[in-house]
């Protein structure tokens, strides 16, 4: 039997006898420990949720936390991710590189019980400087059993731009904020003051940092303690055998799913709205699938560009895995075993593989999402039942920072919002209307919380009629969020699909484009129940004479860049951010008439468009 045949025959579930003979443990122990690893990760996540001060951690789940195995050649273990929580998936796969490279840089043999090593250099297998990695060794009677590992998104990491996202302002990595090679945060359980001071003295969130660094340690300790409990109960060899079993379990599941995808080579092409000069960036992906193996290749994509228009190779690889996982019909427990069948080609010097010292802080979000979408678009061509219309294709950002001068004692504030958006229609049904992107799985913070905590007022958050891509199963509609800063603020915005509409699949139509509009000084008008001032385009297509919105097909239309930092808004300005509508799936004329009537009732589709796109007779 060839290696390939062995792999493909290994996708079926193991019998109890096979588990016993292969791993030396019985099936019950293997399954108890497989689930326990996942459970431990969830407990670690809850610790962060419960104790962190940063809303990105306590509210949004913008972090990943879980367990790594040890290095054990005989068991084919190499600091592999063995279980991850349900936080942001963008922080799952990347631990295969980020944590491993940190452990190797620090030296696995140097770790002592109670140590925590912290790092945030994106050029060491990471994502961007705001994603702070940490590992704590797990020892049992002096034997290294693995690590507890986390990646937490820090609300601010210093540097010239509040929140860290500085498209157009951060030319290179040196302008992004503090960048730490792996170093001790805790030494044998004792906090290392000098490391904490890097955060308290060089970021804009000293109090949050001081607390949350200790929360990270506490959550890692939960993981280490709980693993210790199971190792005490079952013994270290049974534990490690169960780790092997857990990884192989996920590998079998992914290979089984890959066998369902027709063999072939599939291509996808997309664009980022703009590079640093305002020109579109070409993005390409080729997926080669044969048997239970898959290769995802980003060759032919645009070169890296300064000012944040590139991302780390590790981000691209992570996103490629997520794109594949997202399109498989069965969910697979996320661990290194699930990643074994996948190869990724990320050409050095392309926007998907930045070379130092390119800035990647903003590009982390642009290209993380785009590479996931490209994989989905490519595999969509393989089989109609896997196809999906394009989603809003973005991790959008709108941030505000400044001094809250409304207070008796004015204090600085840093706020960032990640508006969610719609997903594309698929063979299974209509696209969701308001979801985080696959990489996020994050919870949007409540408007009431944000209005209480920040000098902001939310005037509106509504679905927008006639923005969903038409189809037998339509895409989700766009959402419009209208915000007014109550004090003068410096802002960053990053919004995608302002230049190109989202794409439908298998005859489905595209969704609407995104935009940001500014109604200057209109909060007072809104309070007086008057119409807002005429809008000026911040991001999207504008009339060159007065900045008003204009039809993109108008020859006079100019595109205003959709990612920029250092933008100033005045107290009382009203900013309307609208994400893209998502693409539809299948011929709209095949849509269930009752579903069209429901969309009209819900104001997702206007009566006129229902007739034009769906041929609906509304009586």
């Amino acid at each position, binding site marked *: 039997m060839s290696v*390939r045949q062995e792999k493909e025959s290994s996708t079926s579930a193991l019998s109890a006898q096979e588990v016993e003979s292969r791993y030396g443990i019985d099936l019950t122990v293997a399954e108890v420990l497989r689930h326990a690893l996942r459970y431990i990760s969830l407990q670690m996540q809850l610790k962060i949720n419960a104790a962190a001060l940063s809303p990105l951690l306590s509210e949004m789940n913008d972090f990943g936390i879980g367990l790594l195995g040890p290095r054990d050649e005989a068991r084919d273990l190499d600091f*592999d991710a063995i279980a991850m929580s349900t936080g942001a998936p963008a922080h799952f796969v990347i631990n295969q590189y980020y944590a*491993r490279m940190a452990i190797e840089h620090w030296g696995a043999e140097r770790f002592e019980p109670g140590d925590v090593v912290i790092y945030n250099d*994106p050029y060491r297998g990471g994502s961007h400087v705001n994603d702070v990695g940490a590992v704590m060794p797990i020892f049992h009677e002096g034997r290294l059993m693995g690590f507890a590992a986390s990646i937490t998104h820090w609300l601010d990491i210093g540097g010239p731009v509040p929140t860290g996202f500085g498209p157009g302002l951060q030319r*290179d990595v040196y302008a992004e904020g503090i960048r730490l090679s792996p170093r001790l945060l805790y030494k044998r359980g004792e906090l290392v003051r000098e490391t904490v001071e890097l955060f308290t003295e060089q970021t804009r969130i000293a109090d949050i940092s001081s607390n949350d660094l200790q929360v990270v340690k506490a959550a890692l300790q939960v993981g280490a303690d709980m693993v210790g409990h199971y190792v005490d109960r079952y013994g270290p060899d049974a534990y490690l055998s169960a780790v092997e079993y857990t990884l192989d379990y996920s590998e079998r599941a992914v290979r089984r799913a890959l066998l369902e995808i027709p063999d072939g080579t599939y291509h996808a092409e997309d664009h980022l709205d703009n590079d640093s000069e305002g020109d579109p960036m070409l993005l390409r992906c080729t997926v080669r699938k044969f048997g239970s193996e898959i290769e995802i290749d980003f060759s032919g994509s645009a070169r890296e560009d300064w000012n944040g228009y590139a991302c780390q190779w590790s981000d691209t690889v992570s996103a490629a895995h997520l794109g594949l996982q997202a399109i498989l019909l069965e969910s697979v427990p996320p661990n290194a075993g699930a990643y074994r069948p996948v190869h990724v*080609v990320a050409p*050095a010097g392309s926007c998907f593989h930045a070379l*130092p010292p390119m800035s990647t802080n903003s590009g982390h979000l642009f290209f993380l999402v785009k590479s996931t979408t490209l994989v989905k678009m490519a595999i969509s061509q393989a089989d109609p039942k896997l196809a999906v219309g394009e989603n809003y294709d973005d991790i959008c950002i709108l941030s505000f920072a400044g001094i809250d001068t409304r207070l008796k004692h004015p204090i600085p504030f840093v706020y960032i919002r990640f508006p969610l958006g719609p997903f594309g229609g698929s063979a299974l049904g209509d696209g969701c209307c308001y979801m985080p992107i696959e990489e996020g799985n994050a919870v949007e913070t409540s408007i009431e919380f944000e209005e209480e905590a920040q000098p902001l007022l939310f005037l509106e958050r509504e679905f927008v009629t006639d923005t969903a891509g038409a189809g037998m199963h339509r895409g989700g509609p766009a959402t419009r969020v209208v915000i007014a800063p109550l004090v003068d603020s410096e802002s960053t915005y990053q919004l995608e699909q302002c230049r190109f509409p989202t794409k439908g699949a298998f005859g489905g139509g595209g969704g609407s484009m995104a935009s940001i509009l500014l109604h200057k000084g209109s909060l007072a008008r809104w309070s007086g129940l008057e119409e807002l001032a005429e809008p000026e385009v911040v991001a999207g297509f504008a009339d060159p004479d007065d900045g008003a919105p204009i039809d993109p097909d108008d020859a006079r239309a100019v595109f205003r860049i959709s990612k920029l930092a250092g933008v100033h808004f005045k107290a009382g300005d009203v900013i309307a951010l609208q994400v893209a509508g998502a693409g539809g799936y299948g011929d709209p004329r095949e849509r269930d008439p009752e579903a069209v009537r429901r969309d009209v009732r819900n104001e997702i589709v206007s009566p006129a468009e229902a007739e034009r796109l769906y041929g609906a007779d509304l009586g």
Partner: protein
Amino acid sequence: MLFPQPTDLTIDEPLEPVDAACPECGNEAVFKYRLVDYRGWLRVTKCRACLNVLDRVRIEPPAQGGA
């Protein structure tokens, strides 16, 4: 400028042709190139038709902090 941007507008992973047919499928689309597997970077000799890996060598990532 201290660090130049690539001059090519789009970037391809360089493929080095290998004068051999794939032992699995017989196809001659065998190349040597770099890719990332679940543990990091590899230089592989691989068939682009059936994805059979004829040879693999683990290599350092092309870009690293401090490098």
